[in-house]
Structures are given as C-alpha cells and as structure tokens.
C-alpha cells in the first residue's frame, strides 16, 4: 500500500484540478445573480428557471434526445452485425480491409466526415433536417459500437453456441437464446457509447443539420457566439449533473454485482 505523502497528494490535487476546475467554475457561475458571467453578484437559481422556460432550449434538447435514441439504436444493431461477421466469418478475401474500413471513421477528422456527408446529402438532394442528422450520427457512431461489441466477442466462448446447436437449436435460435443474452452487457455499453457520442456531437451535426433540427450542442455553441450567458451555464450544469448521476449509478451497480459474484464464486469453491 502506498501511503499519502506530499508528492502523491500534490499530484492528485493537480490532476483533479486540471480536470474539474473549469467545470466547477462553470457550475458556480450558473448560480450567479448577475447577468455578467465573470462578476459574482450573489446566489440565485433564476437562470435555471429561465432555462426551463426557454422554448428553444427545450426544443433543442428534445431533438438531441430523439436523434441520440434513434441513431444509437440503429448504430448498435448495425455495429453488432458488423462485429459478428468480422469475428465469426473465417478468413475471407479482403477481411483485413473490411476490418480496417469499419474502424477508419474513428480516426477520420470529424470535419471531413461532416463535410462529406453534407456533400452527399446535397448531391442526393436530401432536405437537411432531423433525419440527415440522425443518418450522420448513425454513420459515425456505428464503428464505435462495432468496436465495443467485437471486443466482447473475442472472449466469447464459441463452445457455448455449439452446445446450444447440439441441444437442438438452429443457428438463429442459438444466437437469440445464448449468444445475445451473454453479450447483452456489451451491446448495452455500445448503445450508451453511441448515445453519448450523439449527444456530444457538434461538428457533424452542424454540417448535416438544416433548419428546424438544431441539437443542443449546436444551440449552446450558437448562443455562446453572441456571448456567454448565465443561462448557458445553468443548462450545462444540468447536463453535467445528469451525466454524473448516470455514470455514478452505473459504476455502483456494476461494482455491487461484481462483489456479489466474487463472493458466490468463493463460496462455491470452498463448499466443494
């Protein structure tokens, strides 16, 4: 065990300060009475109220959630299918190429992805709006979903599927009854990642979106260009809180399940 000495303490403090100081500052100023962002003028929650009564914020949030939900769901299905094929299909011609092409969008600069999508939508004469943003988000988050699911499939024991076949399942029902439930946590993780990526995205959405389909990040960005308002601080604080609660709950649940499982495993071994 390493004790807390001055070196460790300093490193830790600096590290966390680096990560969280900006966010804490933002949250503090969201309770600022003043209209001026950098001048403290007393505590108030009025900016939170005004966020909830700002229809354009609520609309943007709603668009963002819908885009996120639809794109994450479609991307997870497509990504899972891609991961399954690349993991299961034996060596075929161009497998490396296909694998590379699945992963390529991850390293592609977002601006390029956004621009190419814009060009595509324009040349196909698509009316840009809600569906083009959704399509764009499916495109770029699919590869992340594929990566998460295939990481799980690498350690998936194939004999489980063989056992299901052996006991009378067709390939499809073996997948539904055995493979899917077992890899489900990875699929859920892939969905959450895709959803988060979609919520987070500004660049691609800006290219792919049209009138009437402004996502929250786009809204915030456009507001900030005319000047940071305490309202934005409040909105950001709400977002941060939601995310933080989600992450903390998820990790607590996982941790608890893990502890329970380890305890049961130890019990099983000692009972023998």
């Amino acid at each position, binding site marked *: 065990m390493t004790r807390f000495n001055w070196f460790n303490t300093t490193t830790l403090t600096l590290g966390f300060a680096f990560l969280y100081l900006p966010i804490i500052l933002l949250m503090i100023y969201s309770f600022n009475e003043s209209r001026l962002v950098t001048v403290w003028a007393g505590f108030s929650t009025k900016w939170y109220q005004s966020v909830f009564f700002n229809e354009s914020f609520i609309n943007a949030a709603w668009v963002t959630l819908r885009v996120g939900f639809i794109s994450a769901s479609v991307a997870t299905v497509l990504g899972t299918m891609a991961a399954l094929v690349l993991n299961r299909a034996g060596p075929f011609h161009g497998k490396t190429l296909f694998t590379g092409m699945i992963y390529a969008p991850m390293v592609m600069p977002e601006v390029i992805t956004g621009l190419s999508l814009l060009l595509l939508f324009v040349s196909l004469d698509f009316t840009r709006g809600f569906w083009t943003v959704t399509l764009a988000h499916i495109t770029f988050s699919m590869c992340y979903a594929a990566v998460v699911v295939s990481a799980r499939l690498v350690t998936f024991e194939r004999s489980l599927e*063989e*056992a*299901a076949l*052996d*006991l009378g399942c067709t390939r499809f*029902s073996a997948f539904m009854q055995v493979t899917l439930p077992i890899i489900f946590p990875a699929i859920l993780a892939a969905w959450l990642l895709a959803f988060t990526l979609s919520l987070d995205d500004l660049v691609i959405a800006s290219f792919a979106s049209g009138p009437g389909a402004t996502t929250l990040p786009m809204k915030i960005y456009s507001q900030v260009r005319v000047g940071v308002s305490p309202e934005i601080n409040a909105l950001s604080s709400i977002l941060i809180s939601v995310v933080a609660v989600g992450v903390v709950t998820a990790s607590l649940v996982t941790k608890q399940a893990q502890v329970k499982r380890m305890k*049961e*495993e130890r019990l*099983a071994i000692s009972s023998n």
Partner: protein
Amino acid sequence: METLVNTQPVCKFAPWEDPAQEPLVRFENVTKKFGDFTAIEDLTLNIYEREFFALLGPSGCGKTTMMRMLAGFEYPTSGNIMLGQNNLQKAPPHKRPVNMMFQSYALFPHMTVEQNIGFGLKQEKTAKVEIKRRVEEMLSLVQLEPFAKRKPHQLSGGQKQRVALARSLAKKPKLLLLDEPLGALDRKLREQTQFELMNIQEQLGLTFVIVTHDQEEAMTVASRIAVMDHGKIVQVATPAEIYEYPNSRYSADFLGDVNIIEGQIDVTTGETASLAWAEGEIPLAISTKLRPQAGTTTWIAVRPEKLRISKDKPANADNCIKGEVWDIGYTGNISTYHVKASNGSILKAQVSNREHLADRPITWEDTVYVYWEKGAGVFLDA
C-alpha cells in the same frame, strides 16, 4: 489374436466379436481435410450399441475431429458416417440424436442449473411438466438436487462437470460424446468421476464415445479403445488386449510403460522364436504362434512389471540379461529399476514395494540380472 486368455469381465460384453451385430456408428473411409492438412485419413471404424468407446491419442491425432464430425460441427471431406441406418453426411448438429459434453462444460452462464439441464428438452417443445420431471430425474442422477436454482458461477468445478453431464443426457441421446470430460478435475475427483461415468453409462444403457489423451482414464472407463496417431487408427481393441498384445511400438508405448527391444529373428522352434538382440548375448526367447521369418528385423515389447530383478543369477530363467542399475524411480507403491544392458540399452523393471524401503537390497550401480518368462514378451508389427 486368438491366443488371448479371457481378459473380459465375467459377464462378457463383446458385440464387436459377433458378426451378426449391427454397429451403431460406422465410419466408412472417412477423410477430413482442413486446407492442405489431413486431419483424418481414410478411416474405417465401427462402434456398437452400449459401448463405452475411447478415442485415445496425443493432441493433434484427429480424435477431436472425429468427435466433432459425430456431433455435426464438422463434415467429412469424403466418406460416410452412419448412425444406425442414417447417413449423417448432411445432418446439422440439431438434427442428430447425438449430444456432447464439452471439455469446457459450456454451461450457459445466464441460466440456472435447472434451465441448463432443461434447455435441450425446451427446444423440442416438450411439455413443461415433462421437462420438470426429466430435469429432476437428471438432477438426482448426478446428485445435484440442492443446486437446481444456482447459476453456473456458483458451482465448483466438479459440480459444473456434473451439470454438463446431466444436460447432455437429458435428451436421452442415442450417442453421447464426451470431450476430455474430466480434464479440468483434480486427480482424486477424476478417479471417482470415472467410476460414476461408468455406472451412469451402464444404468442408462447408452453408447458413450470419449475423447481423451489420458491412457489411464481410457483404460479405466472404456470397453474398447482406438489408439490414434496422425489421423489414423493404430489399434482398436479392449484395454487389456492393447496392453497385453499391442500391435505396434506406437500403441505399446502409448498405453503404459514398456520395454521395446529391437533384434533379428534367429530361429523358430515349435512355438518359441528366438531373437538376437545384442552382440555376444544369448538370444531372447518369445512364445508365438506366428512363425516369423528368420533374419527379419523386428521388435518385442515386455511390460516392466513382467521383468524381475535379482542380484544373483537366476537358475533356468527363459530370458536373462545382465546389467547395471542405472537409476531407481521410487513412487511409493512401486520402484522402477532402470538397468543398463551390455549394449547400452536401458531396461525398466518394476517391483512392487512389499517391504520397507530401508530393506531394499538393490541400489545404484549394482550388477543385477533382469529376467522374464518367454510368454511375457510380444512381437510388434511395426
């Protein structure tokens, strides 16, 4: 070999000796290739109903491929596999009355013990009441009733193994395949489980095919063993036949410990052949009904426990070799003496330790005589 003494148990079970018996499983000239690699080469084999048949060989000999072809996870490149009257050539795994117990057990981690065992029956759309009854029957067969509601991770290794067995038996398969079923268990539990497996097989009257690389396990459980090497079957016989009358150096060496002596046939008189094995040594005498050609190079196998060892030259022994004690392997119940003969070859002689170690009269570098009867050695074909 007709010369065999009765090596079978009292109640003789030997359908392979009865030409009227229809085999349950027939491999007919089966070849399996993976790309350029030939895993199984032109193999023909019959397995009969109610047999406990062992496929024995080192890893890579093709035994697992044979099993996977029976299960339907692989298909032969050429040749046929028949199960009764059905050709299994095109049947997918779920359409075969064959079940398999996997080496890793492959228990479904998201299902309870009960659900695991009932899984196969559920696929057949068996009535719920019937599934429940069968699951209970299986649980009591493997003595796991108190664990019905547990998940696999809440079980010990031995319990998992029994759930896997129960699951593979639940559908009453015509043929049960066991892929190294006891490999993950420790030695004590393994021995105990071997006898449990035999009891269950007998009790249910099923046909078992086991794949193993453990010769002791194969000898304990199997009614017949197929010794395999590089995609071919070297010998198929009962454990006792293979042990006492191996047909080749490979199967002699694979099952148990053995002394293999190379030499040339000297003369054959009556039912005794003599083998010149070293310059300046008396030829060895071996009982045989075959009349081997004089001058041919051949090998004989003698099991170490059939060799006796003494410090004094024994009077009228059939075969006697003088040598020096090179090494002594002590394993508690037996001691194995490695004796170096005049031509440099090492002979192993096993002596069971009836007396205390302290009384052991023979020690390193002693000059000793190793001797055995002429009936103890057997000629090998290859």
